[in-house]
């Protein structure tokens, strides 16, 4: 008797999830963005979900839950009901660098999520103050090595993209400039333009307008190809620096246990959004890199997360950078 009840319950449960997934979504979906509204990840999330909402026939509402380098929001999203009505926009920091930076992290980027897909990459650019005594990456690296104790590197706080990519840069070129922390990219750029600090590495969307306005110098962009937004800035490889290719990617995830057909629906909507001309145009204007067809799948994202955790952990641990 008991068994029958259990079996019935199981069947009913299956039927319920089945029906649920078929009709999904029947109400608005919340996407948790683990950063303040207005930042690069928030902007990308809003652009991409704008079109996804139309495909799914339900509004995707952005909820900004900022804090602790994005890990507060991701922790909350990871622990929410895996029913497809709470998803999140993770990025290089929350799903790559975080395990090394936050030893007490409450989630495992490689195990606790159902990846939906990569949304957009934002390349990293190496920039310096306008009157820095070097005009190309080669001269810059020579100066850095000769004057390591004099040079100041700015970053937007421990756990930020500019911090992680900056440490990575230092480990690749084997220098140790003095690190100066700012609360966010804005104040850091302000002091870079005021010639108070010497250089930094940051996302293209933050620095491109200042490069175009000749307020700061760009030495190289850390992607395999040049960006149409900054056609005159060479890639790191072209400029003679091997091993420094890095992008602050942004990707959508659902909590682990979200039904696969729900994830599939979300993933299809994301891919469709990335094929939309208007979405593409808006992402490209930001200097964003739109993932290729093979990079857009949930499987590709899972691989990316695994390789990113493997890449950042030793780099950041060696630099002794933790946020706890």
């Amino acid at each position: 008797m008991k068994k029958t009840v259990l079996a019935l319950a199981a069947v009913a449960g299956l039927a319920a999830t089945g029906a649920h997934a078929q009709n999904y979504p029947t109400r608005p979906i919340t996407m948790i963005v683990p950063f303040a509204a207005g930042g690069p990840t928030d902007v990308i999330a809003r652009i991409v979900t704008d079109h996804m909402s139309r495909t799914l026939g339900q509004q995707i509402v952005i909820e900004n839950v900022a804090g602790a380098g994005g890990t507060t929001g991701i922790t909350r999203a990871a622990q929410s009901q895996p029913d497809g009505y709470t998803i999140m926009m993770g990025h290089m920091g929350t799903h790559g660098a975080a395990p090394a930076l936050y030893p007490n992290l409450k989630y495992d980027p490689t195990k606790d999520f159902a990846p939906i897909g990569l949304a957009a990459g934002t390349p990293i650019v190496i920039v310096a103050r306008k009157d820095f005594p070097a005009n190309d990456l080669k001269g810059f690296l020579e100066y850095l090595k000769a004057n390591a104790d004099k040079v100041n590197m700015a970053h937007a706080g421990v756990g930020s993209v500019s911090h992680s990519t900056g440490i990575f840069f230092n480990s690749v070129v084997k220098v140790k400039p003095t690190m100066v922390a700012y609360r966010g990219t804005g104040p850091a750029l302000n002091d870079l333009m005021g010639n108070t600090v010497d250089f930094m590495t940051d996302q293209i969307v933050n620095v491109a307008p200042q490069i175009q306005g000749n307020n700061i110098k760009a030495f190289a962009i850390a992607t395999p190809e040049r960006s149409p937004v900054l056609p005159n800035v060479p890639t790191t490889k072209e400029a003679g620096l091997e091993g420094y290719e890095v992008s602050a990617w942004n990707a959508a995830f659902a909590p682990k246990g979200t039904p696969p057909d729900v994830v599939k629906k979300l993933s299809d909507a994301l891919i469709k959004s990335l094929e939309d001309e208007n979405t593409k145009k808006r992402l490209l204007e930001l200097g964003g890199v739109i993932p290729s067809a093979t990079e857009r799948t949930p499987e590709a994202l899972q691989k990316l997360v695994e390789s990113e955790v493997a890449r950042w952990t030793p780099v950041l641990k060696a630099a002794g950078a933790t946020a706890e």
Partner: protein
Amino acid sequence: MGDFFSNLSLGFGVALSLQNLGLAFLGCLVGTLVGVLPGVGPIATIAMLLPITFGLDPTGALIMLAGIYYGAQYGGSTTAILVNIPGEATSVVTALDGHQMARQGRAGVALGIAAIGSFFAGTVATLVIAALGAPLTGLALIFGPTEYFSLMVMGLVFAVVLARGSILKAIAMILVGVLLSTVGTDLETGEERMTFGLPFLADGIDFAVLAMGIFGIAEIMRNLDHTEHRDVVRQAIGRLLPNKDDFKQSYKPVLRGTLIGAILGILPGNGAVLGPFASYTLEKKLAKDPRRFGRGAIEGVAGPESANNAGAQTSFIPLLTLGIPPNAVMALMVGAMTIHGIIPGPQVMTKNPTLFWGMIASMWVGNLMLLIINLPMVGLWVRLLKVPYRLLFPAILMFCCIGIYSINSLPTDVMFIGLFGFVGYMLIKFGFEPAPMLLGFVLGKLMEENLRRALIISRGDMMTFIDRPISAGLLAVAAILLVIALLPSIRKGRDEVFTE
């Protein structure tokens, strides 16, 4: 000069189109209505309302967002005056005398002078941006960590002058504020400080949480144990709008406040925060009878409110001319512009002149809208005070909880306003004032971070603060101010009697 007028006429051509006028009005109205909720300041309001601008063209969207910003900023002052809950640092000062005025039945006058002072300041600031925006940009860049630290030192001296009672107690409260500001993850090292391992303290204490608890919740508790006080607020409503005498008392503070606010607003890293505090300090020092301050002096509302609005406006300068946001609200505006396909930067002015000048002109339009919306609403807000307190306070409490939860969606924030409310109530009982503590809290973090930044860059050389002329000048002013503040208290034992 010809350029100036052709630019402005281009701007007004854009801003005065029927659609943009409507959007400015709508933005100001919605901003005011949302911003008036306790704890919901401009940042939360803009973030909440950002999606409704998605369907608009970029210029219209930005005009509406700017309207939301002014509206929310002004709505915050309304809450500060009516229920003593400052939503953000800049309205703390307004709460000091504004709420006292409300208790004396002069809420309408306080709200009216705030609206009129803000409009005047907004008009002047718009002209400053249009005429001097580009050359003033340099000022933001001169201010490095060294200068900023010295500016903050000067700000802390304001906090001492701000106190209306014992100077010793004021200094104690400033230090508590500074101490509270050090809670959270250390910026340079990433170490957690004074968080007791509690994850929700890792990012420190939110200003809105602290201010709402210490001011708002504590105020409710005090009202509940003083039945007679709340009846005063309820019965005597008095005039709705300021009269000739009020204007006579206020026009100079408005002028001075506008000047101070406009200058400080241009500085990076939230320099605008200091504007209202500086204006209040100045008015108190210039007043014939400084003891009126803190007990409903109209100058204490007129000056700081003008400074607040002038600063809110001129903080657009670094954003518009450089694309660098000087504070969190402007960072959000950057995001909003980016979403609409305008990447803020030095090129916006030349690439999108209609957007650039249209936005500047719309600032003035927005300020006019605020005046039009708010003067008739004064009566409505004041009537709110007639609601019996036993019905009003649960509503205020509920809105506080909703407001604070909507900012970070953290249940712990709601519990924290309760805790800080209790602390605030104890402070009132023991005669300590919360305003210097809040200023200490705001300045403490900026001060520490800039001190360390300056010393890291100078490789530990303290002389950097004296070698740099602007920094040295600011420190000298701070020293002089401190002497002026301390002298009378040493001589006369200062105004120590007034504790409620």
